[in-house]
């Protein structure tokens, strides 16, 4: 079985090379930008932790943040929405909103692609929202289906991404363990040394309040523009470095903030999200 898999991988890799070689040879002018002329595009959210790959509950070899605190990760889930692409000459296309909500789950590789349809074209810029926009968050329940169904994923102690006590979605759910987490009420009174970071808040359905929705813009021109054509699958490959949760602009220690869910410190963490996404390459 293993051998078959390896062979398959080699074959795939080889085909990819062939494809790349073939592509680079073709003269490939950007097609006319037409909103009706839709072709497939995917954005791949490849979760990493600093310079390492994401592995769950890796107690044998824990990660270490800039403050030197060792930790492991037990859950990573986040919403990506409102995907938009732009060409070098400023033409932009926003994916139809009903098809633009994705829940990326670290433990489910199948969810790492956000697959959308955009007009054929050469795109130099990708924009998306980390979270669920306020408009959708406040829509009637019938308009919030699929990954946005409050029933999806179980309760908020499990994989659920909906808050019942304060109507709205958890945009980013990141949990793990660290020995620096205290056993008191500020840490984890159960003694399991669990850390929890649940970041939500879309700005309030009536009076304006905390808004942790982050719009991420990624420049594709350096690491490879997306050439979207009907006969192929362009894939924008992003690295999502969750180490930035701790090590971003608003760096913090796990020991000081082991549980961040319902308070305004979530805003500090949300600012760090802006540094999390790096464009690695594009497969055209």
């Amino acid at each position, binding site marked *: 079985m293993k051998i078959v898999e390896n062979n398959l991988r080699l074959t795939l890799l080889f085909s990819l090379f062939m494809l790349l070689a073939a592509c680079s040879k073709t003269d490939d002018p950007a097609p006319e930008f037409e909103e009706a002329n839709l072709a497939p595009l995917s954005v791949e959210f490849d979760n990493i932790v600093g310079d390492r790959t994401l592995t769950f509950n890796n107690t044998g070899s824990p990660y270490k943040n800039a403050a030197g605190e060792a930790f492991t990760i037990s859950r990573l889930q986040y919403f990506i929405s409102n995907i938009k692409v732009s060409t070098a000459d400023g033409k932009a296309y926003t994916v139809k909103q009903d098809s633009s909500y994705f829940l990326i789950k670290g433990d489910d590789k199948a969810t790492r692609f956000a697959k959308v349809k955009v007009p054929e074209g050469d795109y130099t810029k990708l924009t998306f929202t980390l979270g669920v926009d306020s408009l959708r968050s*406040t829509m*009637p*329940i*019938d308009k*919030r*289906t699929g990954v946005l*169904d*409050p*029933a*999806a994923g*179980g*309760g*908020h*102690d*499990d994989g*659920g991404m*909906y808050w*019942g*006590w*304060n*109507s709205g979605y958890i945009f980013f759910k990141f949990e793990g363990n660290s020995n620096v987490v205290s056993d008191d*009420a500020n840490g984890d009174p159960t003694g399991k040394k669990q850390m929890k970071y649940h970041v939500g808040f879309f700005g*309030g*359905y*009536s*009076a304006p*309040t*905390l808004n942790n929705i982050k719009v991420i813009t990624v420049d594709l021109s350096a690491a490879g523009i997306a050439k979207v054509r009907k006969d192929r699958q362009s894939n924008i490959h992003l690295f999502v470095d969750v180490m930035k949760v701790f090590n971003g602009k608003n760096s913090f220690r796990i020991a000081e903030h082991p549980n961040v*869910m*319902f*308070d*305004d410190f979530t805003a500090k963490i949300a600012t760090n999200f802006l540094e999390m996404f790096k464009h690695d390459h594009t497969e055209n």
Partner: protein
Amino acid sequence: MTAWCSNFRITVFMLLLAGVASCKKDNSAEETDLGPHTVQLEVPGNFPAAQQDLDNPLTAEGIALGRMLFYEVRLSGNNRISCASCHRQELAFTDGVALSTLGASGKKLERHAPALFNLAWEKTGLFWDGGSKNLESQAFGPLTSADEMHQDLLVMETELKQIPMYVALFKKAFGADITAANVVKALAQFQRTMISGTSRYDKYKRAESGGSLNAAELLGMELVNSKCKSCHSGELFTDDGYHNNGIDSTFSDDLDGIFQGRFRVSFDPADLGKFKTPSLRNVLLTAPYMHDGRFKTIDEVLDHYNSGIKASPTTDRLLYQNQGTVGIPLSATERGAIIAFLNTLTDDEFINNKKFNNPN
């Protein structure tokens, strides 16, 4: 009337049977013809107008289903708790205890179960801090909370789908399968019909028979009008707003901000310690009082407003009725009259209304 009703029901049933029998291949048209039937709220004459909820319009089928679900223990994780466990009709849909321990974990809750009536007029959010936008989203709170009904919503869908009666009722009400979204919509529809507007006070206001108030009650009404109505306003006896009524002067951020009231939702320092104004209707049925049920009797509540209010930066200025300091001074006579008037707001017809009791 009843005879006609059941005749009508039988006829409908026969038609349905005939429909099913005659065109097994194409009975969808028949089903759509039968419903759902739009319902308008019956608004008491002295109440403000009620808006039909455009996102979840009331239908006879939706309301009937919501009523069944309100009393349905399968909505909870352990299949032993329903909404009605903590919202009992005879107590104007509250539970008579300060902080319930009936939830799945048996842990004492942090907030007091609110009374349920006249919810169609609540437009500024549900829960004591207004954390939920509407009745539909509100239901997800108690349904999923580990200390309340502790339900996995997908499990709930699966369990309900195993009951053919529910499959049929959801189809009738929503033309769709059983989903958590339709569960909360049905619950919301039923709750919007729970109108309390047939107290003796209401009959007095509408000049109906049985609507006389005695001298003490009339005095009490005037006192409530002048001293309480800034917050307990209008015919609903609530302004649907949030106030700090001075029961505390510090608001700890423990337990994820549960004691901080509206601030927990708005993060506005001006909202520290503010909680939603409950209605004075049925107030003598809904003891104990306050968001944590700390006052056991209406006398303790009046003691608080008379002499127990604590001043803090967010204590409502409306409570500074004692020559510029906090407090609403009340004489013994005035207290007696106020309680006499509050008694006229008890709605016996509402708590005995068979439209709201357990249909199962």
